[in-house]
């Protein structure tokens, strides 16, 4: 028979706390059994459960389905705008910038080559001089990367610099690039993957894939 229990009892307090989840049926079996047993004998909790059940029954959806196509079209337009901006930023880069980057790259390579020659001369027994065209194993691609379609060139540069990576090949037919990651540890790859501009980054040396 139902009776009014002390409102201060631990059992009552716990039942009160769990009532919303008893009603939405997401409690585990032990919790649900405890609340059900308490409800059997607590008039206050029975009334509270009935009031909460009525509150849950209030129709809260307000013809939202009618706006779905309209709202999707609005979001799709925002996506298209972002992609267009990215495309334009790549297309309107100053003509001299790629050339300048190439010149700086060649200059850096020459300096590096001179440094290698000097070190090779000064350290007897060290690795022999290797020409620029030679396949230096340290410069091999060790990561395959796909940038997000809406990533800007600035984002890409930031991602590469942040991870200490440089492009050594690509784009491939699937718009992937080959990178050399100077730090081959998993943390460096994870940092590259975490960048918002990166859609996918995979190690070419085996190990766990994304």
């Amino acid at each position, binding site marked *: 028979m139902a009776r009014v229990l002390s409102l201060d009892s631990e059992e009552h307090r716990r039942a*009160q*706390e*769990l009532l*919303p*989840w*008893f*009603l*939405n*049926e*997401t*409690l585990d079996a032990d919790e*649900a059994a405890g609340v*059900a047993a308490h*409800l*059997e004998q607590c008039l206050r909790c*029975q009334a509270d*459960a*009935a*009031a*909460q*059940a*009525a*509150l*849950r029954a*209030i*129709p*809260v*959806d*307000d013809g*939202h*389905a009618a*706006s*779905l196509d309209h*709202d*999707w079209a*609005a*979001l*799709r337009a*925002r*996506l298209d705008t972002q992609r267009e901006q990215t495309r334009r930023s790549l297309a309107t880069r100053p003509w001299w910038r790629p050339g300048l980057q190439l010149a700086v790259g060649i200059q850096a390579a020459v300096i590096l080559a001179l440094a290698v020659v000097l070190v090779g001369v000064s350290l007897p027994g060290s690795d022999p001089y290797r020409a620029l065209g030679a396949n230096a194993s340290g410069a091999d691609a060790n990561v395959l990367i*796909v940038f*997000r*379609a*809406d990533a800007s060139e600035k984002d890409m540069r930031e991602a590469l610099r942040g991870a200490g990576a440089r492009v050594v090949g690509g784009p491939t037919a699937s718009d992937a690039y080959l990178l050399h990651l100077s730090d081959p540890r998993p943390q460096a790859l994870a940092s590259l*993957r*975490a960048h*918002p501009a*990166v*859609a*996918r980054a995979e190690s070419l040396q085996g190990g766990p894939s994304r």
Partner: protein
Amino acid sequence: MLRSFPIRTHEVLARKRSSDASDVALVERVAVGDVRAFEALYRSYYLRLMRFLGLMTSRRTIVEEALNDAMLVVWKRSHTYNRQSKVSTWIFAIAYRTALKALRAQDEPVDPPADEPSSEDAGPEQQLSASQTRSELLRGLDGLSPEQRCALVFAYFHDLPYGEIADIMNCPVDTVKTRVFHGRRRLRALLGDGAREAER
């Protein structure tokens, strides 16, 4: 009386697991820029997000904007989804943070929707229509803190377990229980006698 609260069936749980698996597959396709997968995900979550955001803020224009803002974050951050939570938890966590930003930006007091009469228009002897009841509910929810409001909306109108609500709101489970407990007491006080009648 207790038999009026049915036990969750295995079929419902099995359906939910199946939905989780297809959601994960969609998010993985979104992560490589698949717009069609994104549209499928958008359509799948649209009504649930509308319901959540519509109860977090009663301004329709803000709701629509917040929904698309949240889904744009889903598009941009899909590569960060790590399967440690359900896709729905991850998406609702994004929507929750977006809703908080929208509420903070919402300086002016919230008016009742124009097409929904306020409680003063209905005499105590009149039975509240569904739209009036919803309007009263929104008015009551407006009186809660955003955190209380969110926890209560997820528990009552999305049937989420307290653990999942805690994951979405990034807080301890006990905090969720406390927010819902105090939120519903305050909601009852704010709804007043007319709405309490509607509850019965």
